[in-house]
């Protein structure tokens, strides 16, 4: 394992020190609790928007703190959920009386920790709602299992609800919107190579020199199948088809496309894949009305990409277009 680290145990807190030094005018970092907070928050009357999860997915979530998006991000250790104390502290910090909305990726650890935090926060008089993001179509959907993993749709929920909260929507409306966006999004990823968790010191997934994982999770979880490497146009088809079908996107419908790099994939390849995805959506009669291409939800150094499609309605598009001013997303 070759990484820019000192002690693997200190990676997250040392990186947060860097975040604090790099963005002193926009972010306030609580190193002890591993929280990243919007400078100048909480904003009176505004719903507090809070997310978090294991580290290693940067810029998600800490890079999305700022006007038009999150009020706070809670960082766990690498690929490990934050614990309720941290989340509680964040909820209290971002509550301006209008309540707090937690955006949680659907992993048992995250779900349980955010749930306990919400109970504790309610005990402290903070109103808390939760939107669960579970968009990874590689995992079968079922009420009887842990369900689908939360992946790319998280970025879309954070952006769109972030703008809506800024616009003054109340807690129930923000929650409903978040659920709509999460419900109208589907994702799937491909790994060409594994990530390596600093504390583990070796690759999480054991992929052969020509092997790839279709449907990989953002922690290197197994996907639908392993197969041999194929040309980009075939790989794009293996993302487009399951996502479009699960979302039941029909000819003539519109889509917001988020093509995401998983950390080790160069922009050159990402844009090349975007071209393929765009072409194939067009062939299916799907109209790409908005797009985002880049590495926004990563798995450390994993080589790979994920495709997220959202079936947007007009309000979602308006809030997508609304200004955002965070370290990682700004327009």
């Amino acid at each position, binding site marked *: 394992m070759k990484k820019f680290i000192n002690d693997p145990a200190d990676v997250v807190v040392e990186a947060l020190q860097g975040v604090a030094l790099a963005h002193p005018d926009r972010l306030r970092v609580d190193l002890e609790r591993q929280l990243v907070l919007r400078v100048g928050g909480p904003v009176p009357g505004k719903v507090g928007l809070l997310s978090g999860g294991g580290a290693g997915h940067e810029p998600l979530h800490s890079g999305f703190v700022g006007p038009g998006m999150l009020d706070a991000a809670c960082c*766990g*250790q690498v*690929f*490990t*959920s*934050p*614990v*309720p*104390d941290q989340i509680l502290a964040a909820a209290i910090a971002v509550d301006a009386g209008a309540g707090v909305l937690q955006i949680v990726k659907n*992993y*048992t*650890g995250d779900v*349980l*920790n955010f*749930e*306990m935090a919400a109970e504790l926060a309610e005990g402290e008089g903070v109103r808390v709602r939760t939107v669960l993001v579970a968009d990874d179509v590689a*995992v*079968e959907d079922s009420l*009887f*299992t*842990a369900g689908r*993993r939360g992946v790319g749709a998280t970025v879309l929920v954070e952006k769109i609800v972030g703008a809506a909260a800024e616009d003054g929507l109340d807690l129930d409306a923000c929650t409903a919107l978040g659920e709509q966006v999460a419900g109208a999004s589907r994702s799937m990823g491909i790994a060409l190579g594994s990530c390596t968790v600093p*504390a*583990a010191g070796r690759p*999480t997934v054991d992929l052969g020199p020509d092997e790839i994982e279709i449907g990989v*999770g953002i*922690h290197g*979880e*197994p996907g639908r199948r392993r197969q041999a490497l194929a040309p980009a146009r075939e790989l794009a088809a293996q993302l487009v088809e399951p996502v479009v079908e699960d979302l039941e996107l029909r000819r003539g419908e519109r889509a917001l496309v988020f093509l995401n790099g998983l950390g080790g994939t160069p922009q050159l390849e990402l844009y090349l894949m975007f071209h393929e995805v765009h072409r194939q959506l067009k062939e299916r009669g799907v109209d790409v009305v908005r797009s985002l291409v880049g590495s926004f939800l990563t798995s450390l150094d994993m080589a790979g990409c994920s495709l997220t499609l959202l079936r947007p309605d007009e309000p979602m598009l308006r809030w997508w277009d609304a200004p955002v001013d965070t370290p990682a997303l700004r327009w």
Partner: protein
Amino acid sequence: MADLTAFQAWVAQSARSIGEHAAHLTDLDRAIGDGDHGANMERGFTASARLAEDEQFSGIDTYLKKVGMTLVSTVGGASGPLYGTFFLRLAGPLSASDDAGARELSQALRAGVEGIVARGKAERGDKTMYDAFAPALAAFEEAAHTGRTIQECLDQAARAAEEGRDATEPMVARKGRASYLGERSAGHVDPGASSAALVLRAAAQTLA
């Protein structure tokens, strides 16, 4: 009868046992999870065992609540809230006593295990820690009901937990990270069920 000292001995013994088996727990989690269960549990129980050294507790329930909160904030992952809730809920039925008998222990154990279910929504056969806790609770209640000593109740609970743990091997996971593996999760013992068996065995060694 189990007094505060006994409960503290239980937590200490759990920490020791988990420390000894941490690598094994991690190996199990590496096979069907993300390979951190040993480290998670060791971190949490070490911190919990240290509580008794650093602090005076006025009763069993305040102690168990503190253990629960400590586990919640140090174990992390899925198992942190689950073990944390277990210990937090144990405290309830023991709030009045400073020396628990079989009946109170039985009630406490039920409250704790129900807490795990309330939080994790697991059912029997989902291949989770509940598959160790549930038979342990049943065995304890059965033994207590038929008038066994606390030691006998605890022994039977520990044995049932170990059998429950072993029974997770062929199961297909339906909860937690292992569920992403689908059929491929079969053939591996569940890490959480394994740590649960250790904690219940530690109880049998200390609580009576």
